């Protein structure tokens, strides 16, 4: 396996703010690689540097063997990109959007037509090929963008939050298409997400927080960082319960969002003891295998959370309202 993405000591500063603080990473050909982290962790900034939309402040990155700062055009012709916000032209039809993309990337017309038909089939939009994109649902748009992203046979497809804002069923479908494309085209997928369940579809994951990679490995490896099972307690007084657990069992629990999480090697036998010996009222209790949420919480000390609306979110909403009537 050859490396398709190599990142060395990558730093990106916006004025005094360090969005990316020294990232090192190697992604192999054919991998599904996930960048997992909360909003503002530096995921989109990193992806934008890899796609040559931003210039790194320090460090270097090679995509498909080409330095992103030295030859952006060569990098761009070898990658596909699916943005967080739809970047389709909704006044054009699905086929026109794909055709325009093929022209821009210099796909010859005969091959272009064949490729468009083939991909419309894969993402199941063949019967809507001649409909204007503005009549499409969010999931259909995303499928079309994914088809567009691989139209020119990129070596790497970058996906920035590919399933953001989609319902669970649609999200699952998107993953079916992505896996199908990966199988057919051998394309490397590099994606960002803040959905934990989605990260589990990846071959490898980098957990990123505050501009740094805090953990890197397969989902199983990362979950292995948590010893055994996770017991989640809901109590009214979390700090008091945490003290009790620590005193009685010698385990330091983690607290997040009004719940207490306790890692134990054998949850099934520990749970009855816990319920019996804890003096306070327990509202609810659950036992689970560790999820990536637990890993994230353990590594960073805080849960993956949605942050307040940024300026960009406001502009995004404004745009949605503005164009609302046409969607």
């Amino acid at each position, binding site marked *: 396996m050859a490396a398709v993405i190599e990142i060395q000591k990558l730093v990106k500063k916006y004025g005094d703010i360090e969005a990316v603080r020294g990232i090192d990473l190697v992604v192999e050909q054919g991998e599904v690689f996930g960048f997992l982290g909360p909003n503002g962790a530096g995921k989109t900034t990193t992806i934008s540097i890899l796609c040559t939309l931003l210039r790194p402040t320090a460090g270097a990155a090679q995509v498909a063997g080409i330095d992103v700062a030295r030859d952006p055009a060569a990098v761009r*012709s070898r990658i596909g990109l699916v943005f967080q916000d739809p970047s389709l032209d909704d006044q054009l039809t699905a086929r026109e959007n794909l055709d325009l993309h093929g022209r821009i990337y210099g796909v010859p017309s005969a091959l272009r037509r064949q490729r468009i038909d083939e991909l419309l089939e894969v993402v199941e939009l063949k019967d809507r090929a001649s409909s204007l994109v503005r009549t499409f649902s969010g999931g259909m748009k995303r499928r079309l963008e994914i088809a567009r992203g691989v139209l020119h046979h990129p070596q790497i497809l970058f996906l920035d939050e590919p399933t953001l804002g989609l319902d669970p069923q649609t999200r699952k479908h998107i993953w079916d298409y992505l896996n199908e494309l990966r199988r057919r085209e051998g394309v490397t997928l590099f994606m960002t997400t803040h959905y934990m369940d989605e990260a589990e579809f990846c071959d490898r994951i980098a957990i990123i927080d505050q501009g740094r990679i805090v953990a890197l490995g397969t989902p199983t490896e990362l979950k292995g960082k948590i010893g055994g099972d996770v017991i989640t307690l809901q109590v009214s007084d979390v700090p008091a319960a945490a003290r009790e657990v620590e005193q009685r069992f010698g385990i330091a629990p983690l607290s997040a969002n009004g719940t207490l999480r306790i890692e134990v090697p054998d949850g099934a036998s520990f749970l009855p003891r816990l319920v019996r010996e804890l003096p306070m009222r327990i509202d609810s209790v659950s036992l689970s295998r560790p999820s990536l949420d637990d890993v994230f919480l353990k590594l960073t000390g805080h849960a993956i959370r949605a942050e307040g609306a940024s300026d960009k979110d406001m502009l*995004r909403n404004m745009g949605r309202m503005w164009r609302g009537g046409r969607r």
Partner: protein
Amino acid sequence: MTTAAPRAAGIVTPVRGIGGGLLGAIYIVWWRDIIRYWRDRARVGASLAQPLLYLVIFGTGLASSLGGGFGATTAGGAGVSYTQFIYPGVISMSVLFTAIFGAMSIVWDREFGFMRELLVAPIDRAAIAIGKTLGGATQAMIQGLILLVLAPFVGVTLAPAVIAQVVVLTFVLAFGLSAMGVALASFMRSMQGFQVVMNFLMMPMFFLSGALFPLVGLPGWMTVLTRLNPASYGIDPIRRVLLGSSGFPVDRFAITIFDQTLPIAVEIVVVLGFGAVMLGIAVRAFQRRD
């Protein structure tokens, strides 16, 4: 054209590079704008409402209070009615507004729309700036020229040669303004700046352009402002050709600098030069990466 890195067997090796180079890319950006414009015919109709209001209500109202012989004060013979005077001005207004509004859509498009697709494409970004300018100019020109159908109602006769000249002159004006709009949009990061552009640039440009009143005999400060306004040099030749050919005495409204009436060719050069400088600024701005 470069060859792709080794790939798994059975995968088609793509052809890299843009078909047709810079010109091909410009054409694609332009073509997209034209398709969108054609699809949005409802907007085309609606955008004619404002020029019509100016022409029919504003024009008729002012014409009534000014009397029929507007501009006929010095020489004898037939004057120009106020409605006739502002007719080329209203055509130009349509061009101005379409060009600037069209360019402002770039700001939104870049953050959340199709523009992002273009920005990551392996094309020279100069093609985006040039294609957008030409696309906006084409739309603005058409929006202006549509108003030629009103010529018979304002008493202007259109010979084919006149139409041909007006098409060229309208495109020159549209190009200059569209390039300015794209240059402005390339520096704007939010739509909030749009109001500023509207109030401090578009409206003053419109009022000081000679669209609504002749640019002669004005106070000194205003004369200076009108002569600094590139739109003035775009509107004046349209009026001179459109009304002059119907036998109206319009030369006395023509722009003068130090009492010299400018030849139409010079006015065209001024507007094209302005457009070229603006386009240069826009190209530089698009090629810059953060």
